[in-house]
């Protein structure tokens, strides 16, 4: 077919099936990546963050799985059994030592599960207490951060969205709470809540099992620690709202619901996850601090802070009893912090200096 410069006819050749050589051009050399996958890749490249993450996984799995098969219970005083006189040889065992009845069993050829970390002054297996303490600390850290996240996100997004007077009022309240010395207020509130009549109120409910002290810790977190999270989210929403792509979406006629779901949330979520991840170690820290002061979990439930605090009494003869929870808590806080930093570097390249 001849080609004329001003031919209105379509060129039929353009509609021929593509040859293999032409198809080659369209082949994807590598699959397209999403924001999430990109972030994970960057995270895995960061050795410190990866090691921290593995550490967190190991510790978490250990404190979930070990109590399932461990032959001792965290609150079982080994020297005390029904119908027999109290056997005092079980208290304050050093690592891999045995109580009298256990030694008799070993002499008779039976195998007895060793007390890896010995026992505490009440004759309880110390290893399982450390495991339980870790479990409590992790749980408290996780749920406290969740509470902070939910409250902070709600208040922050309301302030960011509504703007105007609502924003001003909310932000003044946030400013005031922010200026309070947080740790002192936490101690004060926990001291008051622990002595309040709340324990009668929660008797018989699920909440009783959690214990009043942990519950008051959650209340305190819900009252005081949401402010920085809500500030962050408000700032995010305020700046995102003014972005060109939001304006473009609005110009195209997108409804507010779609703008929130498709544009604001995905851009906000990274920062939210990162600051929640960094909130966990600080919650664990606060819990152990309060437990150390005697305002944390209720006995006989152990937490890493209360274990360390109990060990302080026998520090001269049994210093390993303090070192073990101290090392565990440092490991948890350090690896969570480093992992959080890694997350921030990987998922928020804008923040990365």
């Amino acid at each position: 077919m001849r080609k004329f410069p001003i031919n209105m006819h379509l060129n039929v050749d353009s509609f021929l099936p593509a040859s293999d050589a032409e198809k080659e051009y369209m082949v994807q050399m590598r699959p397209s990546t999403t924001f999430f996958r990109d972030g994970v890749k960057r995270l895995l490249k960061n050795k410190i963050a990866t090691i921290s993450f593995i550490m967190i996984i190991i510790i978490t799995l250990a404190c979930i799985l070990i109590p399932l098969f461990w032959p001792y219970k965290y609150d079982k005083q080994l020297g005390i059994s029904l119908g027999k006189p109290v056997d005092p040889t079980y208290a304050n065992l050093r690592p891999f030592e045995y109580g009298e009845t256990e030694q008799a069993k070993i002499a008779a050829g039976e195998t007895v599960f060793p007390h890896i970390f010995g026992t505490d002054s009440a004759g309880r297996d110390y290893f399982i207490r450390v495991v339980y303490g870790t479990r409590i600390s992790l749980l408290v850290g996780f749920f406290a951060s969740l509470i902070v996240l939910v409250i902070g996100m709600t208040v922050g997004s309301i302030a960011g969205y509504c703007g105007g007077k609502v924003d001003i009022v909310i932000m003044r309240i946030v400013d005031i709470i922010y200026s309070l010395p947080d740790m002192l207020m936490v101690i004060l509130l926990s001291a008051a809540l622990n002595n309040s009549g709340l324990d009668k109120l929660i008797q018989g409910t699920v909440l009783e099992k959690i214990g009043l002290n942990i519950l008051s810790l959650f209340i305190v977190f819900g009252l005081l620690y949401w402010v920085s999270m809500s500030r962050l989210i408000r700032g995010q929403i305020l700046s995102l709202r003014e972005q060109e792509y939001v304006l473009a979406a609005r110009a195209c006629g997108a409804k507010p619901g779609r703008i929130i779901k498709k544009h604001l949330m995905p851009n906000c979520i990274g920062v939210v996850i990162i600051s929640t991840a960094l909130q966990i170690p600080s919650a664990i820290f606060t819990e152990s601090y309060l437990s150390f002061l005697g305002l944390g979990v209720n006995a006989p439930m152990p937490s890493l802070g209360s274990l360390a605090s109990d060990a302080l009494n026998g520090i001269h003869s049994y210093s390993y009893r303090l070192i073990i929870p101290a090392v565990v808590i440092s490991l948890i806080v350090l690896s969570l912090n480093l992992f959080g930093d890694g997350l921030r570097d990987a998922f928020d390249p804008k923040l990365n200096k």
Partner: protein
Amino acid sequence: MNSKMAFYIVKRVLLALFTVFLVITITFFVMHSVPGGPFTSEKAISAEAQKALEAKYGLDKPLFEQYVSYLKDIVTELDFGPSIKTRGRDVADIIADGLQTSAKLGVAAAAIALVFGIILGAVAALRRNKPIDRIIMVFTTAFVSMPSFIMGSLLLILFAIVLNILPANGSTAEGLILPIITLSLSPLSNITRLTRSSMLDVLGQDYIVTAKAKGVPHIKVLFGHALKNALIPVITYFGPMLAYIVTGSLVVEQIFAVPGIGREFVSSITNRDYPLIMGTTIVLAVLIVVMNLISDILYKVVDPRIKFE
């Protein structure tokens, strides 16, 4: 600019005053909302004796009246009322006694943190990515996230039990060494990291290049131009540092048996000595709020580039 600065200072002072007022109010009402009162835990007390005690401490009056008189006593004569568990002593006396020891501890810890933090931070920045920088960064990363009670316990085990070179009891002057080190390590690490990053920032600025190009001596560039400007962000850390030292001293004084305000506070919580809890909380909170105020104002005054809101 000057009127703006004055306005800012007035605003900040008013906010600080309001915060102090709020702390007193919260402390008062939280402690008074606890049912039972401080005398219920004591055994064998008759109804009349209970009444007499309550009348003596003014607990029988309406709550709001108690609040107003409590507030008035604090503002006019720094009187926090009598301690309930330590008979015959005023809360203000106990706090003043405790503060003497705690102030030594806190000031020494803050001074050590500042001096060594700035030196280490500057060294790390100048020897960036060299072994010494790496070592400093590894240690500061570990120390920053280590809770004070763990640091204190580990130092106690290491120096007082294993090596046995320093006393574990903090009631003597020598015994204060370990608590001071414990309290200073975390702020020291924070200041080191802060100084390092702001020093790196400053060293890349044009005016450093200009100064070098003009032929200003190396030492003078470092101290006169770089470090002077790099220290401005460190000022903002004064407030948080004091807050850390105050809350840290609560447990550190417990660990090392230092007779300071922190130990009084902790024992007042276990003893349920409500006036003492309230008094200590308020005094410590005022300290933190004032320090935050000072560091905020200083930060804006020192650096003219920072805008006033």
